[in-house]
């Protein structure tokens, strides 16, 4: 029976059929497992985000180095 079909004041205790109660417990267990999985996924995503950020920083550093080397070359070539 859907909740909407049988509106109950939420402050009052309710009774759930024992088979449905067991179903609920099973679902809660599955939900717990899924939440753990989602947490793991989020940790992996955070790790990937950090890795990407590191790569971008390294990328920028390399570009700065190239710019510096080009400046040296330009200076050297214009001196002559």
């Amino acid at each position, binding site marked *: *029976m859907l909740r909407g079909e049988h509106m109950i004041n939420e402050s009052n205790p*309710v009774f759930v059929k024992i088979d449905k109660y067991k179903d609920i417990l099973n*679902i809660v267990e599955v939900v717990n497992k899924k939440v753990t999985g989602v947490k793991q996924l*989020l940790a992996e995503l955070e790790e990937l985000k950090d890795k990407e950020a590191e*790569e971008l920083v390294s990328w920028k550093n390399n570009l700065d180095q190239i710019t510096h080397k*080009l400046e040296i070359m330009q200076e050297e*070539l214009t001196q002559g």
Partner: protein
Amino acid sequence: MPKKPIEEEGLFIRVNNPILIRKNILESSKLILTILKQTYSIKQVRELKQEKMSELSQQIKELRILLQKIEELMPQYTKADLKKLLPDIPIAKKAVEQVKASRPEAKAEMKEDWAEELKPAAPVSDMDRITKALEDVQRKLQTL
């Protein structure tokens, strides 16, 4: 011998430190290749992130469905409803016994949640019963 025009002879510029320039060119090439490699690496990371995001999205959808299912299963009958439906069965005791037998760890939870409800009900007057029934009718009317 006739003198060649400047354009044909070409211009020559003295390079004081050719080794330094050569070294810089090679190092720059190396850095460019490193950047190229990093580009692929970032692309791979982003693809992996995309996969993980899709997986996460799927998991969240499943969680939502499961929680919805719990919501559908959860509140069903009040004590008054059960008394109407099953007047001869001592609901509270039976429920506790079944739960205890099926899931011993639920005992503690049951104590907390239903302890008050499982106590023998205090005798209620007719007036209380009618008031309660009226409240039930009003509540049902509100849901229509």
